[in-house]
C-alpha cells in the first residue's frame, strides 16, 4: 500500500503547524502583529497551559484508554495549590501534585483490579474531583495573595520562556527521551496495539496502566497548579475548558484513538499547533469564537479522518457514482 501523508502520524502535525503559520501570516500580511517578537512568548505561554495535560491524556490514549478526569484534576489541583501555597508556593505545588498522583494511582488500581474501562472510572473521578473542588472552595473563587509568585511564574527569561513554559518543555524533553531510548516507549505502543500480545510478551500491563494514569494525574495537577498561581486565583469551575484543547493536541499530534500510535514529540507539536493558533488569532485581534470554532473544526476533521470506516465509505460512494454513470 502507498504510505500516504494521511497515514503518517509523525508528518501530519508538522504540515498542520506549517499551514497554521502560513495562514495566520497571510491574514496578518504587512501589519506585523502575528509575525512579531511577542508571538513566540505568548505561544509558549499557551503551550504551557495545555501541553502537559495533552501529554498525560495522550499517553492514556496510546494504551487505548482515555483519562476524562484530567479536567477535574486540573481545576481541583489549582484550588488546592492556591489554598495551601500562599506562604510556601512549593508546598502548594507539592500538595497539588500529591493529589494528582494519588488520584491517578487510585483510578488506575480500580481499573486493573475490577477490569473496568477507563472512561467509566475516570468519569466518576472527574465528577468526584469537581465536587471536591467545589466543597474545598465552598463554591467560590479563591484569590492567591502571593503576587510575587504569581508574577514570577510568568516572568520571561531568555526572551522566550517563562517558568511555566520552561517546566513544560523540560518535562516533554525528559518524557520524549525516555520514550525514545528505553523499553518504556515500545512497551506502551505494544500495549496500545495489542494488549494481550503485550501481556504474553512479558509486559506488566497492569503496572503500565496504573503508572500512566498516575503520570496523567500529575501532569494535570502540575499544570493546573502553575496556571492558578499565574492567574493569582482559582475557582472550582474556572478551568473546565481544557479537555477540548488537550484531546485536540493529542490527536493532532498523531495519537490514534485506536491506541498503539503516537509519541511525545508529536503531542508537543499538536499542542504547539493549538498554541500558535490561539496566540496568532489573539494577535490579529480575531474575536474569541474564531478560536473555539477553529479548534472544534480541527478536532472534528481529525476524528472523521481517523474513522475506521472512512476509506470503506468513500469507496462505496465512488462505486455508486460509477454505476450511476
Amino acid at each position, binding site marked *: 500500500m502507498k504510505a500516504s501523508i494521511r497515514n503518517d502520524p509523525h508528518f501530519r502535525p508538522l504540515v498542520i503547524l506549517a499551514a497554521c503559520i502560513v495562514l495566520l501570516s497571510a491574514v496578518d500580511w504587512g501589519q506585523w502583529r502575528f509575525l512579531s517578537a511577542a508571538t513566540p512568548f505568548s505561544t509558549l505561554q499557551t503551550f504551557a497551559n495545555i501541553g502537559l495535560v495533552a501529554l498525560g491524556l495522550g499517553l492514556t490514549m496510546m494504551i487505548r484508554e*482515555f483519562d476524562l478526569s484530567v479536567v477535574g484534576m486540573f481545576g481541583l489541583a489549582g484550588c488546592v495549590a492556591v489554598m495551601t501555597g500562599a506562604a510556601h508556593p512549593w508546598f502548594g505545588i507539592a500538595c497539588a501534585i500529591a493529589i494528582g498522583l494519588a488520584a491517578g494511582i487510585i483510578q488506575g488500581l*480500580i481499573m486493573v483490579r*475490577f*477490569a*473496568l*474501562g477507563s*472512561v*467509566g*472510572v475516570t*468519569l*466518576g*473521578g*472527574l*465528577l*468526584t*474531583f*469537581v*465536587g*471536591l473542588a*467545589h*466543597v474545598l*472552595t*465552598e*463554591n467560590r473563587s479563591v484569590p492567591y495573595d502571593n503576587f510575587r509568585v504569581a508574577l514570577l511564574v510568568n516572568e520571561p527569561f531568555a526572551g522566550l520562556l517563562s517558568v511555566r513554559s520552561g517546566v513544560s518543555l523540560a518535562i516533554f524533553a525528559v518524557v520524549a527521551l525516555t520514550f525514545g531510548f528505553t523499553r518504556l516507549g515500545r512497551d506502551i505502543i505494544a500495549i496500545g496495539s495489542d494488549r494481550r500480545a503485550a501481556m504474553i510478551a512479558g509486559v506488566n500491563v497492569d503496572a503500565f496502566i496504573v503508572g500512566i494514569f498516575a503520570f496523567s494525574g500529575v501532569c494535570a495537577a502540575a499544570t493546573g497548579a502553575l496556571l492558578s498561581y499565574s492567574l493569582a486565583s482559582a475557582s*472550582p469551575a474556572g478551568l473546565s475548558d481544557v*479537555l*477540548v484543547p488537550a*484531546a*485536540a493536541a493529542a*490527536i493532532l499530534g498523531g495519537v490514534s*484513538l485506536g491506541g498503539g500510535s503516537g509519541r511525545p514529540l508529536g503531542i508537543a507539536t499538536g499542542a504547539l499547533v493549538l498554541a500558535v493558533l490561539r496566540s496568532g488569532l489573539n494577535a490579529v485581534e480575531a*474575536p*474569541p*469564537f*474564531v*478560536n*473555539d*470554532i477553529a*479548534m*472544534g*473544526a480541527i*478536532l*472534528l476533521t*481529525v*476524528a*472523521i479522518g*481517523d*474513522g*475506521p*470506516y*472512512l476509506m470503506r*465509505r468513500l469507496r462505496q460512494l465512488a462505486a455508486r457514482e460509477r454505476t450511476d454513470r
Partner: protein
Amino acid sequence: MTGKGDTVRGTREMSMPLAPDWRLLPTAVRAVVIVALTVACVATPGFFSLPNILSLLTTVSFMGCVAVGMTLITISGNIMSFSLGATAGAAAMVFIVAVNIGGIGIGLIAALAVAALVSAAQGFAVGWVRANPIIVSIAAVALIYGTAEIFTRHSSIYFKPGTGIEILRGKLGGVPLEFVVLLCVTAAGQFILYLTRFGRNLYMMGSSFRAAEAAGVKTWRTVTGAYLWAGAFTGLAGVMLAIRYDGANMDYGVGYEYDAIAAVLVGGTLMKGGHGSALRTLAGAMIIAIVQAMLLLRGFRQEWQYLFTGLIVFAVILLHSSGERR
C-alpha cells in the same frame, strides 16, 4: 441441562472459592438503596412538604429529559455525548428567538429541529465513518459554544412581552408541567426502545456491533437515529429551561451532560451498551434528585451535591463491574 448448569457453577466456584454470587449483588444493593432512601426521606424534616416535592419534580425534569436521550446513545454502544448540555443551552436560546419572531409553535419546532439536527450530525459522523463518539462530541461542544457566541456575544436573551409563554409555566393536575413532559419523554423513549425495530437494532448494535452489521442492520442509520432522538429530547429540556427561567444564555446547559450520564448509570444502564431502558434512567434521575434535595434540606450547601453525585457515580460504576465481568 442441569448438568451443564452445574459445571458452569462449578468452574465459577473453583476459580473464586470465596467470592459471593455476584449476580445477586446488584439486586441486593438496589433493595438496600431503596430502603435507605425511603428511611432517609421520612427522617428528613420537610422532605414531603409540597414546595420541596414540587421543586424536586421540576428540577428532575430538565436533567431527566437529557438523560433519557443519553440513554439511547449509551445503549447504542457509544458511551455518552458531551455535547448534550451545550445543545440544551443552544435550544433554549433558539426557542426564545423563534418565539419572539413567530410564536410558541414556531419556537418549539425551531428549538427541537436545531437540537435534533446538531446531535444527529454528530451521530452521522459516529455512525457513518465510525468516528470516536467522545472526540466528536467534545469537538461539537467547542463548535456549539463558538457558534452561539457569534450570535449572542456572551449575553442573555429574553422573551419579549406578550408571547403568552406564561401559560406553559403552570401545573397539570397539581403536577408541574415539566414533570408531565418528562413522563411523556420517558414513555416515548421506552416505546422507541422496546416496541420498534429501531429500538431492537439499538440493543443489538450495543451488544455486538459486528453481529448487528452481519445481521444486515444499517448501523449508521441506527446510530444517527439514536443521536437524533437524544438531541430532540435534549431540545425539549432546553425549551423547558427557557420557559422556567424566563430567559436563556449558554450557561444554562452547563453540566447537564454529566448529570444525565450519572442518571443513566445510576439507573443501571451499562456503560458498554446493549442494556438498559428509559424507565431505569427515570429511576436513576429520581434517585439523584432525591439525594440532592435531601442534602439541601439537611443543610449541606450546594457544593456537596456535586461531590455526592461524583461519589454515587463512582460507586455505581464499581457495582456495575460485578455485572459486566460475567
